[in-house]
Structures are given as structure tokens and as C-alpha cells.
């Protein structure tokens, strides 16, 4: 074989997985799009009690925003501490490794932990709040890792210059490092949200019920969610899959929305950070 033909063969082989991914993606869209027929603006905005899915959509968004609201600040502070303050040593390395491992824990196990700890021991019951805390456990490692990376990308010269002007370490970090890392930090929070937007197992035992009367009014109320609804309809009620394609499609779009938002944010902010180019 001449080297030119070899090149072509190898590039073709390398391209196959990408084509396969695209095909699968379009196939999913194609299958789900058959659910479009069952959707209408009316169904999206009508209460479950009257045959719509309104509470499920809002419940899913409630879960997401609340979890991000808790995991965001905790994760950011933890990451700042780990990068800027934690003494490098065995303990810090262990914590670092523990965070990595947390990201790898199956969500059903996290859900089980949530049920035992948040719902029962803390007495939150099956509630929105318990769901937030459980999802927080899943978002945290993503936010911590993402924030750490974002902070490490900020040139140390910014912090050094601030310190040389006579600022305290915290002031140098809060006025230089964190604002410069903010784009990466925000992106990591949105990525964390995208990661759990379609999460089922973690909210299965901790926060969801099939039907509620209206939206939850306090964090102690249970909530409805699209993913949970799919699960129950297929497994417990034995409905044919085609009947829930519409709901699956809505959930799919919510996940895609957050994933796309993360990408758009990253591209937008990269343009404004000349030191990253």
C-alpha cells in the first residue's frame, strides 16, 4: 500500500465512531420526534390533573435550579479552598481522590443514600428539599473539578501583582482570581445541571411522586418530574413506550438546552479572556 492510501484508510477508520455517534443521535431524535404528535402548547401548560404535564416540567426545573443553588456556592468555596489554601499533603490528596470517586458513584446508590440520610435521618421525607440535597451530591464533584481547573487557568501573575500592591491573600483571590475564573466556574455549574437534568435514580426515592395537587409550595413538599413520570409509567403502570415519547422529548430538550448553554457560555467567555488563547 502506498502511504497515501494508508492515510486514507486510517482516517476513514478514525471517522467511523464519529459517524456512528451522529447516527445514534439522529436516530434518537427521529424516534422521539414521533412523540411530537402527542405534544401541544396546551399539554405543556395544562395541569396534570387535567391531562397536561405542566407540573412535571416546572418540577424538573425546580429540582435543577435548587440543586444548582446549593451545589454551586458549596462547590465553588470548596474548590477555592482546595486550590488556594489547602496545604499540599496526604489529607488534601485523599480529599481530592474522594471527590473523584464521588463523581463515579452510581446515581441509584446516591439516591439510596439520600433516602436513608436526608429523607429518614434528617426527617425531610419525600420532598423537593431532599431531592435538592441528593442531586447536590451529584453536581458537587463536577462543580469542584470545573472550578479548580478554571482557577488553575488564571495566570498566577494576576494574584502576584495584587499581593505586591499590598492586598491580603483573600482580597487578591476574591478580586482577581475568582472574577477571572468566573466564566469557567459558571460553565461548570451549568455542566453540573446538564449532568443531572435527566437524572432519575437520585430523585426516585427522595423527592418524587406520580401526582401532586399543584406545584410544591415549600421545600418539604414532594414534587413531580418528567424523568420520574417516565419511569413509573413504563415500569409500574406498564404503558407502551410510544405513549410517553412526548414526555421523553420534553426532557430531552431540557437536557440539550443546558448542555448547549454550557458550550455557548464557554465559547462566549473564551473570547473575553485573552490569556486563554
Amino acid at each position, binding site marked *: 500500500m502506498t502511504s497515501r492510501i494508508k492515510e486514507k484508510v486510517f482516517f476513514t477508520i478514525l471517522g467511523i465512531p464519529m459517524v456512528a455517534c451522529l447516527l445514534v443521535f439522529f436516530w434518537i431524535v427521529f424516534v422521539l420526534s414521533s412523540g411530537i404528535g402527542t405534544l401541544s402548547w396546551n399539554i405543556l401548560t395544562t395541569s396534570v390533573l387535567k391531562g397536561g404535564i405542566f407540573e412535571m416540567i416546572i418540577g424538573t426545573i425546580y429540582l435543577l435550579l435548587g440543586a444548582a443553588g446549593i451545589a454551586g456556592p458549596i462547590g465553588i468555596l470548596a474548590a477555592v479552598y482546595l486550590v488556594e489554601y489547602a496545604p*499540599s499533603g496526604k489529607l488534601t490528596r485523599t480529599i481530592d481522590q474522594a471527590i473523584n470517586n464521588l463523581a463515579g458513584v452510581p446515581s441509584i446508590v446516591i439516591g439510596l443514600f439520600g433516602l436513608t440520610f436526608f429523607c429518614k435521618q434528617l426527617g425531610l421525607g419525600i420532598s423537593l428539599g431532599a431531592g435538592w440535597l441528593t442531586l447536590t451530591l451529584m453536581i458537587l464533584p463536577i462543580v469542584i473539578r470545573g472550578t479548580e481547573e478554571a482557577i488553575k487557568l488564571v*495566570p498566577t*501573575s*494576576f494574584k*502576584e*501583582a*495584587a*499581593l*505586591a*500592591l*499590598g*492586598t*491580603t*491573600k483573600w*482580597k487578591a483571590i476574591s*478580586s*482577581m482570581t475568582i*472574577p*477571572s475564573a468566573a466564566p469557567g466556574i459558571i460553565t461548570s455549574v451549568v455542566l453540573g445541571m446538564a449532568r443531572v437534568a435527566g437524572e432519575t435514580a437520585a430523585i426516585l426515592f427522595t423527592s418524587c411522586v406520580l401526582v401532586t395537587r399543584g406545584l410544591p409550595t415549600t421545600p418539604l413538599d414532594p414534587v413531580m418530574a418528567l424523568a420520574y413520570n417516565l419511569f413509573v409509567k413504563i415500569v409500574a403502570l406498564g404503558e407502551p413506550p410510544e405513549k410517553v415519547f412526548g414526555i421523553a422529548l420534553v426532557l430531552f430538550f431540557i437536557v440539550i438546552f443546558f448542555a448547549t448553554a454550557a458550550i455557548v457560555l464557554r465559547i462566549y467567555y473564551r473570547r473575553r*479572556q*485573552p*490569556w486563554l488563547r
Partner: protein
Amino acid sequence: MAEVDIKKLNVWFKDNHVLKDLSFTIKENAVTAIMGPSGCGKTTFIRAIDRMNEIISGSRTTGEIYIDGINIYDENTNVYELRRKVGMVFQKPNPFPKSIFENVAFGPKIHKIANGKEIDKIVEKSLKEAALWEEVKDRLNDSAFSLSGGQQQRLCIARALAVEPEIVLMDEPCSALDPAATAKIEALIRELGEKYTVIIVTHNLQQAARVSDFTAFLYVGKLVEYGDTKNLFENPKSELTEKYITGEFG
């Protein structure tokens, strides 16, 4: 205006003994060049004067440095006030990712030296002192990154001057700049030397000769020779200095 009196200064990074028993006095309102080959401890030396070495883990310092008669390594010394009094300009221009105005205003705001209208005045005065005002007065709100390398370095000088320091440390401030920008900064250093105690690190012999009143020659962490720049270049006392300035090593 402040004299810097160094007594038996030693600095280690972990096991590496970088500065060995330095003792000499840097004169006020003059430009003193610290020269020597790479790795001789020049940068570590000037970073010792505003205690910037201690932000690096594993560093250890012994000895004393007196500024205005006060030992900056005394445990009662306020390191933030010290760093206000001792400005620093780094090797690579490192403006903050903020506007030109905010870069200069940052220090005065932190130290609450001024507020409101007074800040505007300090910014203007500092930029004028750094010979940058005419070039940027119409675009103070532009990003500092929109400036050229030489302008960025003058902005960093203005930022250091804005907190009203007495001593200005410069760590090879021209090494990342082209000849034209270097010439501007050198002229500026000469001017600053009349009002501030300027200590500049350089491994460029011609630069030391051009800009400084006094020169200290460091070699592997030790002070080899220190004195009037003209004398040191024309009649070096030490053989090592002579070899260095004639280019036998470096």
C-alpha cells in the same frame, strides 16, 4: 525615599541555599542595578525586599532588612503596609484583566488612600509619572490588554506608583520588550530614580551601565562587588566582576 539596609540576608527554597549572607546598603533616591548571571539569586533578592518570597511554599529567610530603620522581617511588621511602601514591577507585563483606569485605581482603592474624584487625580498623576498618560488619556476604559507590551509595562509601573511607594523594585522589566519600548522604560527608570529608591534586576550589562547609579554584582547567591556603577565598570575590584563585564562568562 528610603534607604534599604541589608544585614546577613539568607534565603532558602527547601534545601537550596539561594542567597548567602548578603550585607550592603542601598542608597535612597538612586537607581541601583542588581546584575549577575541567570540563577545567581537576583530575583530572589529583590523579592526579599517586599517579602514576596514567603508566598512560595518552602521558602525560608534569615537576617534583617531595614527600611527607614525598621526591620521588615520583624514579627510586628505589617506586611501589607510594607508592600504598599515597596512597589514591584515584574519581568513580564502583568496588567489585571480590567480597564486601564481600574488597573491604576486598584491599589489606592484597596488601601483607601483616596475615593471618588481623588482617585481620578491619582490615576492621572500616576499615568503621567509613568509617561503613559498622553497615549491613553482618551481610552481609560479600554481593556489593559489592548495596549502594546511596552505600554502594558508602563501601566504596571503606574499601578505600582499609584499607592505612593518609596521604593520601586523592578525585575528585568525590559526583558520581554522590543528595543524601542526598552529605551522608553529606561528613560523612565532614570527619571523615577530622582524621586524613588529604584532597585532593578538585570542581566543586561549595558542596561545596568545606562540606567543605574550603583551596581551590585551577585554570583551564586553571594555579593561579589557593590559600588558606584561607573567605578565598578571601569575599575572592577574583583577578578570575577571583571570577567563578567568583559563577557568571559554570563
